[in-house]
């Protein structure tokens, strides 16, 4: 575990109770080294999203621990979890998760506003990130005016805005066609390398698996060997 940016230990998560209980995660344990990109692979309902939510502190496990950059996520209170997501963990959602009323630049600036960055510094960083994802010319467009691939690139730029240690992406290419998905995956791979972040990406996509440093397979709530 020494040196791992992410350490998941014996995590269990069950929804419902009795006969209707759904065991989403069962004794899940693994480590992720800094600067690596991990592909979390499994069928629908296998527990990928639940695991990502537990890692990001959006959901609490019934038992087990999650450590991110030396911080025990499972021991944090609400404010601590919010700080965690603001400072260390960033999300990229399958459906992009952009705020529809904000422009691309404003969406990217959201984490910087949460960090109360200087407006000038914020603008500089937003421009930089939009250029990084190839959307420098689309800064003022709203999500509804962008294609799916462009929206996901904005989402990735937003995820990088606060310089997180861990990037969690839940099927980031699930809503995209193959060509755009490939481009987005390339982008993710690129930023992992250029920004030095660690990424955990839930995916079905074999291309994504190929680009990942490591693949963790999960089935019926367990990490498969």
């Amino acid at each position, binding site marked *: 575990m020494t040196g791992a940016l992410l350490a998941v230990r014996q995590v269990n998560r069950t929804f419902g109770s009795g006969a209707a209980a759904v065991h989403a995660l069962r004794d899940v344990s693994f480590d992720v080294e800094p600067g690596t990109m991990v592909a979390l692979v499994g069928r629908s309902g296998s527990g990928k*999203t*639940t695991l990502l*939510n537990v890692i*990001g502190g*959006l*959901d609490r496990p019934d038992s087990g621990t999650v450590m991110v950059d030396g911080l025990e996520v499972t021991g944090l209170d*609400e*404010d601590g979890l*919010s*700080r*965690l*997501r*603001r*400072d260390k963990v*960033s*999300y990229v*959602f*399958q*459906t992009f*998760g952009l*705020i*529809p*009323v*904000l422009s691309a630049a*404003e969406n990217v600036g*959201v*984490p910087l*506003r*949460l960090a*109360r*960055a*200087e*407006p000038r510094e*914020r603008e500089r960083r937003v421009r930089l990130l939009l250029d990084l994802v190839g959307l420098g010319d689309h800064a003022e467009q*709203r*999500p*509804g005016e962008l294609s799916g691939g462009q929206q996901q690139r904005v989402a990735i730029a*937003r995820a990088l805005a*606060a310089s997180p240690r861990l990037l969690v992406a*839940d*099927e980031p290419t*699930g809503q995209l066609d193959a060509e755009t998905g490939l481009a987005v995956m390339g982008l993710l791979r690129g930023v992992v390398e250029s920004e030095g972040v660690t990424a955990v990406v839930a995916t079905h996509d074999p291309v994504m698996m190929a680009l990942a440093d490591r693949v963790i397979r999960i089935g019926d709530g367990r990490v498969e060997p």
Partner: protein
Amino acid sequence: MLRLVPRRARAQWPLLASLLTILVVGTTLLGTAALLVTRTSERGVEVSAARADPDDVTATAYVGTVAAANARSVATDTRTVLTSAMAPFPATTTTRASAALRLLPMGDGGGVLGGGYLSGLDDLPSRAALVAGRWPRASAALPEAAVLQSTARLLELKVGDRVDLGPELGRSPNQAVGVRIVAVVRPLQNAGWDRDPLGGTGFDPDPPESTSARQIHAYGPFLVDLDDLLTGGSALSRLEVTAHPDLSAPTGRGLDELTASLLGANRKLEGTLGDRVEVQRVSSPLPRVLLDARDQQQLTSGGVLSLALIGLVLTAIALTLAGRLTTGVRAGESDLLAALGTSRRQFTAVAAAEAGAVAVVAVALAVPLSSLLHAALTRLPPLAGAGLAAPVTVTAAQVLAVVGGAVALTALNVGLATRTAAGAGDRRTQRELLARSGLDVLLVALAVVGWWQLRAQPAAAGSRADAVRVLAPALILTAGAALALRVVPPLLRAGERLAGRARGFTLALAAAGAARRPQALAAGLLICLGCGAATFGTAFGSTWHTSQRDQADLAVGTDLALSLTTAPLTGQSAQVATATGGVISPVARQNIVVGQWLGGPDSAPQLIAADLRHADVLLRGRAGPAGGWAGTTRPLVAPAPVTGVALPRGSTPAITGTTTGAMPISVAPHLLLQDDSGLRTTCDGGPVPLDGRAHPVPGCVTQPGLRLIGVTLSVLGEAGIQYVTRIDATVTLPAPSTSAWTVRAASPESGQLDDPQITATGSRLRLSSAVSFADTAPSARILVATAFADPGPVPVVVSRQFATAVGARRGSEISFAVDQTPVRAVVVGVVPQVPSAPGAAALLADLDLLTRAMAVRGNVDLPVSAWWVGHPAAPDAAARADGLGLGTVTTRAAEAERLSGSPVRASFPAVLRVLIVAAVVLLLGGVLLQVTCDMQARAVEVARLRGLGVSRRGIRAALLGEQAAVVLPLLAAGAGVGALATHLVAPLLIRSDTGATAVPAAVAHWPWASEILLLVALVAACGLAAGAAVLVQVSRADAAHLRVAS
């Protein structure tokens, strides 16, 4: 497809419940309004008639000059016609008849004849008090008669005396009539003695009904049994039959029949009496009262409908909002169904089935709810106070209104349900923007036309409710709200630009959400119009009530007015002052002739004269000029009061006189007395022969505190001959005079009195003058001595209408006649209105100066017709004043209560309250619905914000900030629209109780305290509704939403 309806209803019951609630609110309002404008409105007319002043619901037939042979049949036929005219209501009648003037044998009257007349009343004991003797009986061998105290005193009659009245004067010779005096009576106040030929005074030195060429001193009446009079062989000079219908339980239809019947009664009486009479006329205020009530009923119904229409528009907008939100919620389902091949017709059928089911439930609820609400309203003020409390009832009109409203609103609902919803973040298309602009322009154009039409409505009475009055308020409010919505987005965008500069996230997201989300303003029109309607309703109610008070203030003119039925008697001021306390003033109020101008039939110029030394306390009416009435009337007040000679109570002045010629001459003295309150009364003495002996003038100083301020001597002798003599008369007073007395001829232009002189020596006033008898008019020989000088032109202020009519302005000299006495006046000011004469061409003068000006012209019968009381001290002053039995008491508080609580008007303030409540309920419902739907639609977004590291607190702040940024400007805009509508429309909608333009004109009144309270309550309630929705939604925003979204 139709199987979808119940299943979807179970799944989406909160949405359907909100639709149902809105529909129920709207249709209940309609049902209540329908009950108010039908059942309550009709009941209002009935109660109005039942509660009308008894004098206002009588009809009197006046018949003049009836031959003795026809007297009985004419009286019977007149009663029959009048009673039948009261159908379908039973009626009782009272009859008063006066016979022609007969010669009354008297002693030497200086060449003047004496006259007396018989009268018969069928209810004498209720009109007079027995002083001596017993009431006359019918069919005595010698007709029995009662006489008034004054007649008995002047003719020295007592019970048991026989009086023989000679032939009728100026008519064919007929039989003399003898009567036995069996009673001396005192006329009761307010008992109709003003209808007596001599006004119940018992004596008139120059009666207006005299048909003789010679001067006649008339005495009477000799009150005999009515049947004796009608069958006793006397011609009647006047016969009056008054019918009193029993309107205790009237019906509207019966009242309409009565109105029509009375309007035709005159012709019917004419046809019945034929040539048996010379003059006949039926007069009744009742048709006017009932027609006015119908006019008011129409106006009030128009007002109620206009308010109900505002409620209906609000309901339609709320329903539109609910429909749009429902469509938005069902967008996915609709897309799926469309993709599965569902046709538009099938969509419409499903929507119609669902909306129809909701409408049926709404009708089933709204009918009983509107009945209950109506019944509850009638049990609350002002309807309860107006006697309109009603049981829970269901009427056909109410059901029709509810069903009609439900059908119309359901059609709207179905139309909306078949439209597609706008997606989150969608920008409007150019076409939609153009359509919206076109609708705005159309609304504004219609609103302007409505306002213009309201402004152009006739000022006269009888303006009935019309479509413009019903539609204009709703149009103006809706157009104002639509325009205000145009202002809000730029404001929000400006706010967003400012908020964008902030470092933090919360403010920026809130401002961006408010400025950029189309859904944020989805409830905008409802919030703006709801707030506008509520603030308008509050301000309109306040404006209406303020206007009623203003109208009452101006109509009464003072705090308490006591209108006298007969001229005030000496000592009455003490009675009034004791009863009411406060500042009291005798008031002259009557029609006048200005130059040659008589005015119109119902718009004769009026004179109002009061003691203006206390104008600030006495006069009321908002139309008073800046600086108050005291400042305006200061130039009208006499610089110094009249003092005259103090007369100890019970003292008796005496007159001694001589003449230089041989012809017997007498003088009729009139003493002008003044009491402590400034009331001036006269005491008439009988003719006094100028024979060198002292003749007392008894019975004048019956009260303490009286002062003699003038004496007139009517010189009596054979007129129409060339004869000149000089008279010398000395008035001996009980106390010396310190005033400077002056003397003059009352009408110097006649030239009958020459070189009048007066000398005041100690307690003697010696008057002398050369007298000519060439002129036959008795008024040409009146010598006037006063303890004051001729005041010259009387300073007056005139109403604007008066000034316009006669072209007068400040400094203009005018001349007007009061009781045919010319008075010169100078206009010192023009005011919008004169107290107690709203809308009239009227002038206001100081009573002291006016009566001085009249006295120097020989008219000492001063025209006091009322008492005004300012700041009455006694809490029950009105009741105590009424208890004096002197006349009709009116207070401005009671008048305001009458105006605002009238049975035919009380529905209006009641429905105003309902509108305010409905507007607030719909507004809050709309806000709750909008916020809830918005939060549900944004659940995933909220969860993602948490995923981005935004704390729950931060999300709550951002969402609440967004809602506040939207709702607060909308509420402010709504309040602005309400204020604008109040200023533009409210004064135009308010009419007087006769349906004419309110006088003084209604002025928009913005009740700051109530409005601020309302707005604070709205803000708090909206905050509570939005806060609850946001709180629940944010607390639910967790990983589950992210899972769903993924």
